[in-house]
């Protein structure tokens, strides 16, 4: 048993802290879900992505030949943790570029695809930005029931249908899309394929969906006789489900650490604010802070456990779901407590974060209004709990 990081990781930690200090404005804080909404935020995020790429951090886990550093899981963990503690923006290259598009291409992509797309992501340039289109109006949690169709015609596929909740579609150069190629397959998930789509192609319409805060994060995306070269099929036709499930594994190394780092920053900010305002005197507040701190410490060690299992060569099945549920529960607690501590000031609209009365850069308000988005995106809590029950406890499928 050893809860210490190695020298290499500690050194990286210090380097990232130095980077944050040099590259981010004083007092910088950023939320996870907002950067694609405002042009100004997005441009700043892109400028940082470029700098991360120059240091080889952006895609550090990738092999050198594709623009990475072959970093270990523990180095990735430290990077994710620090990057989100300091609020370093631009780390994901849209939705999925770094976390699953690149790694999936390395596993299932053709030589040509690897040569073309991987360096674009690793470069941190706008041409390496992706969106991911899985969900449809009638296929959310039950994602295998997607209806968007791709039909082969000569050396092209023709795509028709609609995606929804596609985050960053308005920023992305490419779309990583799952479609039905065999609607008559014996099981729905056996007829799915993955394609790469150029967002500037004819036949694509992106329509913004604005969340109740007023952010433009996600979109509806319509496909009307969109023609895609057959060379843009990733892996094998009808093998998409298997590929996607496999690709999920790549996310795991970064997500839990990212969540912990972010939460830790929020907690630290709250502790400081509580202290400054003399609110530590209030037993209820101090005990709630203590309670959240306990949950956060637990989250940290669970996240480390997941990475440790992976470092032993295991491919964790239920742990990422466990960590997701746990994170949602912590976000909710932080949001409730943070706005309670801010009191009246928590009423200020997060879109007016430059208001002179805004506290903590409007961060608590953002968290309060956005935590539900995190809880729903990438697998709702209920669906994640199903996975924990089914794979962690080996209980019979519940639905």
């Amino acid at each position, binding site marked *: 048993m050893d809860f210490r990081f190695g020298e290499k990781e500690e050194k990286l930690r210090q380097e990232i802290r130095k980077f944050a200090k040099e590259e981010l404005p004083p007092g910088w804080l950023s939320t996870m879900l907002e950067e694609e909404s405002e042009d100004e935020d997005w441009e700043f995020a892109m400028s940082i992505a470029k700098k991360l790429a120059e240091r080889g951090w952006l895609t550090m886990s990738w092999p050198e030949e594709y623009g990475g550093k072959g970093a270990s899981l523990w180095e990735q963990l430290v990077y994710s943790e620090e990057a989100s503690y300091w609020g370093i923006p631009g780390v994901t290259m849209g939705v999925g570029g770094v976390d699953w598009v690149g790694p999936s291409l390395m596993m299932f992509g053709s030589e040509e695809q690897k040569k073309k797309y991987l360096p674009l992501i690793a470069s941190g340039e706008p041409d390496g930005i992706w969106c991911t289109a899985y969900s449809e109006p009638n296929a959310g949690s039950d994602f295998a029931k997607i209806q968007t169709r791709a039909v082969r015609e000569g050396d092209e596929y023709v795509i028709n249908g609609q995606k929804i909740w596609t985050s960053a579609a308005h920023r992305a150069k490419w779309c990583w899309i799952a479609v039905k190629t065999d609607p008559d397959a014996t099981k729905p998930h056996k007829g799915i394929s993955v394609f790469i789509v150029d967002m500037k192609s004819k036949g694509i319409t992106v329509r913004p969906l604005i969340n109740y805060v007023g952010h433009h994060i996600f979109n509806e995306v319509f496909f009307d006789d969109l023609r895609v070269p057959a060379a843009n099929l990733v892996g094998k036709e009808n093998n998409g489900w298997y590929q996607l499930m496999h690709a999920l594994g790549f996310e795991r190394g970064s997500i839990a650490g990212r969540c912990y780092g972010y939460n830790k920053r929020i907690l630290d900010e709250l502790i*400081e604010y509580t202290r400054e305002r003399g609110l530590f005197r209030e037993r209820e507040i101090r005990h709630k802070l*203590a309670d959240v*701190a*306990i949950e956060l*410490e*637990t989250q940290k060690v669970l996240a480390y456990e997941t990475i440790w299992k992976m470092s032993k060569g295991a491919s964790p099945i239920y742990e990422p779901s466990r960590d997701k549920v*746990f994170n949602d529960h912590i976000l909710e607690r932080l949001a409730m407590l943070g706005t309670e501590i801010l009191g009246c000031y928590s009423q200020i609209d997060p879109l007016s974060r430059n208001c002179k009365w805004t506290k903590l850069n409007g961060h608590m308000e953002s968290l309060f209004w956005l935590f539900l988005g995190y809880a729903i995106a990438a697998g709702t809590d209920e669906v994640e709990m199903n996975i924990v*029950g089914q794979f962690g406890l080996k*209980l*019979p499928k519940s639905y």
Partner: protein
Amino acid sequence: MDFDFSEDQTMIIDSARKFLEKECPKDKVRKLKEDEKGYDPETWGKMAEMGWMGLILPEEYEGIGMEFFDLTLLMEEMGRNILPAPFFHTVALCSLPILEYGTSEKKRNILPKIACGEEIWTLALTEPSASYEPSGIGIHAISSEEDYVLEGTKLFVPFANVADHLLVVARTSQQENPQEGITVLIVDAGSPGIKTEVIPTTANDKQCEVVFDKVRVPKDNVLGEVGKGWDIVEFILQRASVLKSAEMLGGAQFVLEMANSYAKERVQFDKPIGSFQAIQHKLAGVFIDVEGLRRLVYEAAWHISTGLPSRLLTSMAKAKANEVYKRTCIEGIKVHGAIGFTEELDLGLYYRRTKAFEFALGGTGFHRERVAVELEGYDPLFLRR
């Protein structure tokens, strides 16, 4: 970063589990509920032979010199299988502070006897105020030429009914700061003037009221320094909180396993009840809690083993253990339906220990407060940059 157990640790876990399953089946646990002593001296002797009492004592005191972390794993197994015995009390509450604060003479005299299972020790800390704060220490030890004279009542003293010796936390002088003026005394349980009465706790764990009526304690029997006893209590609190949390972790894990297998076997509406989402999510929630508790307890134990500051983590672990243990038992019983409400099901034995576990070494509020104090004094990283 490495969460693997060493070979020795795996061996401790395996042998403890086998031993306890054989030596301490549930019908014996039930029988011991009614037993006057509250433990089985024969099993106690065998535990000593296995080296458990001296697990982390150095070899010079007849111990086997393992680490604190290893003791944590042993406690986890004891909690898993419910071992009614004065083990935690003798080892965690007494042998560890004696090893840390005792003079070499005291260590030579006492520790080998503990290691060999010859003596049972316990800690007399709480009083009728039932507080773990230094202000809760009211019992006086008045200094005379060669003795201290102890006067007052200690409450919830575990296994005082069978203890050979007690560590008594007493006030030797009145100071403005309640932490000062406290002294830990080594008291022979057979001294004239000590009266012990067992309190009928739900856990049947032989917590006692101990009345000291002008009990004479030789001056030589001070552990550590006069007036600095609260440091020793703090030392004990941190270690014992982790070990108690480990015991609770073992119990919670077992309760979860019971409920989980029942959910797979029990059929209603033609389906195993574990396929109903209300049941499944209950169990999944408990499972997440127990897994989190495990890592947190291990982290705290590792901090102690490694000699790192551990006040924050040990209180985090105990606060969490308090909540998780309770919740696990409650949800576990609900999953069982009416059978969960009976004496017959072993789960009740675990549930009956909830309050004893929760308030041993401080309830959730007490530990939250300790965490809050640490947070208040903490220097956030983002300000350090």
